[in-house]
Structure formats: structure tokens, C-alpha cells
């Protein structure tokens, strides 16, 4: 299963970006093979609706879940419709966030 994490910069430092739509990089983690890939987020430059554009990419990447700091209401709604689970985390690193996800410590965000 593919899970996407939102990362700062080009993602190589392993630092999470709290933002979803305007995070520069998505880290795509494959939970079966433990593989990780980095993908640039093309929505960063949208004047408006960055979160929605990013949601589209998440689904196009074939992810089943997203781990990020905060996800706007519109994007949350869209991801919910697409069957992607959204988890919010306060962790600053990918490693911590992944560990929390494995332990079941992350809160699932749902549209109101």
C-alpha cells in the first residue's frame, strides 16, 4: 500500500512539512516493500485551491493514505470522496511520523 507524507524542500532531509497543498515534496512510502520515492508537488504554485490540486495528485499516485500536518477542509472532503484516509501528525520527521502511524498513534482527520 502506498502512503504519502508531506515533506519540506526536496524531501532529502526527512523533515515533514505541516502543510499539505503547499508542501514542496511528497514522499511516497510503500508499506509492503518499505520503498520510498520522492515526487515534487506540482500544486505548490497554484494561487488558489492548492490543496485540491494536491489531492488530485495523491489519488493519481495511487495512495491509500496521506500523513500531513493539516489538510484544509476542501481537500479533506475531496480525499474522503476518493477513499484516501488522512492522518494528521505533529511529528517533524518522516521517521517519527511513520513510527506513530505503525503504532496506531495518529488521529484520522475526517470531514465535518
Amino acid at each position, binding site marked *: 500500500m502506498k502512503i504519502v507524507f508531506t515533506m519540506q524542500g526536496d524531501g532529502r532531509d526527512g523533515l515533514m512539512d505541516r502543510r499539505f497543498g503547499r508542501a514542496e515534496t511528497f514522499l511516497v512510502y510503500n508499506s509492503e516493500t518499505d520503498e520510498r520515492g520522492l515526487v515534487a508537488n506540482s500544486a505548490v504554485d*497554484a494561487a488558489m485551491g*492548492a490543496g485540491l490540486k494536491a489531492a488530485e495528485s495523491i489519488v493519481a499516485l495511487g495512495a491509500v493514505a496521506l500523513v500531513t500536518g493539516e489538510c484544509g477542509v*476542501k481537500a479533506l472532503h475531496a480525499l474522503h470522496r476518493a477513499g484516501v484516509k488522512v492522518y494528521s501528525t505533529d511529528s517533524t520527521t518522516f521517521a517519527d511520523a511513520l513510527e506513530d502511524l505503525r503504532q496506531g498513534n495518529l488521529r484520522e482527520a475526517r470531514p465535518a
Partner: protein
Amino acid sequence: MRIAVASGKGGTGKTSVAVNLAVIAGRTATLVDCDVEEPNAHIFLKGDVSSTDTVSMSVPAIEENRCTGCRACVEFCGFNALISFGGPPLFFPDLCHGCGGCRLVCPAGAIVEVARPLGEVRRIDAGRCTLVEGCLEVGVSSPVPVIKAAKAAADGDFVIYDAPPGTSCPLVATLRGADYVLLVTEPTPFGLSDLRLTVEVLRQMNMEFGVVINRSMRSESLIHDYCHHEAIEVLGEIPEDRRIAEAYAAGRLIVEALPGYRPLFRSILEACLERVTA
């Protein structure tokens, strides 16, 4: 005759100048509150609402049984109001500008247009003058159609537009069609900086305009120097007076709470009229 009262930022006393001028102009005047995101002229001009009209915009609705999921509409929409996960797109009205492009490009004829309410235009009989107020619904991000509708609802011979703050689309939409613009500013570096930006927009639009200095201090020549240099006329100065701030805080008109100021507002109004007829 249409006069717009504008200022670069909020808090310069623009609304205060607009309502006081409208009251001085009298019963036949109409004030249009074009600050539809935060209309507050009604705080000063109370009265009964005589009519309310809904303002709406055409937005797309997707007929899912006709949609082939081709994404043509999604690719077209530059505002990211449509997104698709493969099937029929999802529509996010907050982001839609109502351009109608998605319907034009859809090869399957799967998009129709429906009306989305954006806000209201209310007519208020305030006794001393008429108030037309545009009010944007909370959560709606397109003020321009509501501004246009509010302006269209003002039918009197003498109309004052209370413009929204800022220098972007809402201001431009308000100023269009005005015969004269009164810029309200403060004699501070902040005030001057915002005034400059607004003047740039007005010049780009080829509008006639003049300046009113609010909270004016005799000792301060900042705005005068700028206006002199730019050949902009100063039509009046409202002095720094704590009683004015207090009247404003209490929701009272200056010309009623402090009648000594009536001649000042009358002279500003007359100066505007002269410039328009000249």
C-alpha cells in the same frame, strides 16, 4: 451623478466620510455600501429594509450520466474549482469565478449551469437618505458580482459609492462608472503609502479624483507635499479630533453628534459637484 469614496486601506475614516456626505446631500441621495465583505454603513444609517434581492452567479453542475470523465473541464479551469479522480469531476464552488469555460469545453455536453447565491442587496430607507447595501454570504470569495448588483440597484440621481479597502478587483469594480473619486487618507507615512498605490490604480483607469485628509494635523504637511507634487487637489481636511473618534465608536454621524462640522462636509460635497460639472 456618481461619486466614489475610496481609500487604500481600511480604517482611514472612508465610511465615515461617505455616510456623512450622503446625509448632507439629503433625502434624494443614495449611499451604496460596496464593502460587501464587511458592510458597516448601516451602523450609522439605521432604517427599515424595504427590499432584499439575492445575487447569484452561474456555476457548473455536472450531469454524471453524460460525463465521460475526459478531464477537459478540469484541465481548463485555471482556478482549480474542478478536480477529478477519474470519474465525473468534483466541483468546489468557493473557487469558481463563474467564467463558464468548463461548459464550453466539455465535449460530452455534460455541464449545465445553475445559479449559486453569493449574497444579498438590501435597500434601506434610512430617512435622511437611502442606503443600498451589498452583503456577501460568509464563505463566498467572489465579491465582484455583489458589488455590481448593489451599484445597479441604486437608481437615484445622486449616488455615493462607499468603496471596499485595498486596490484589487473589488475596488476596480466599484470605481467603474463613477464620475469622480474622493480619496480619504491620513497624514501618516502609512496613509501616504496606501494613497500612492490607490492613485496608481486611478490613473490607470483614467479617473478624476481628489483627496480628503482625515485626522489632519495642521503641523503635518506630508500629504499636502505629495498632492502638490503630483498635482492632485485636496478638497478638504477633517481635523484630528478625539470627539470624532468617540462619535464613530458610538455609531453616530459626525454631522449630527458635532453639528459644527456640517459646513466642512457641505464644502467637500460642493467641491466634488463642481469638479464633476466642470
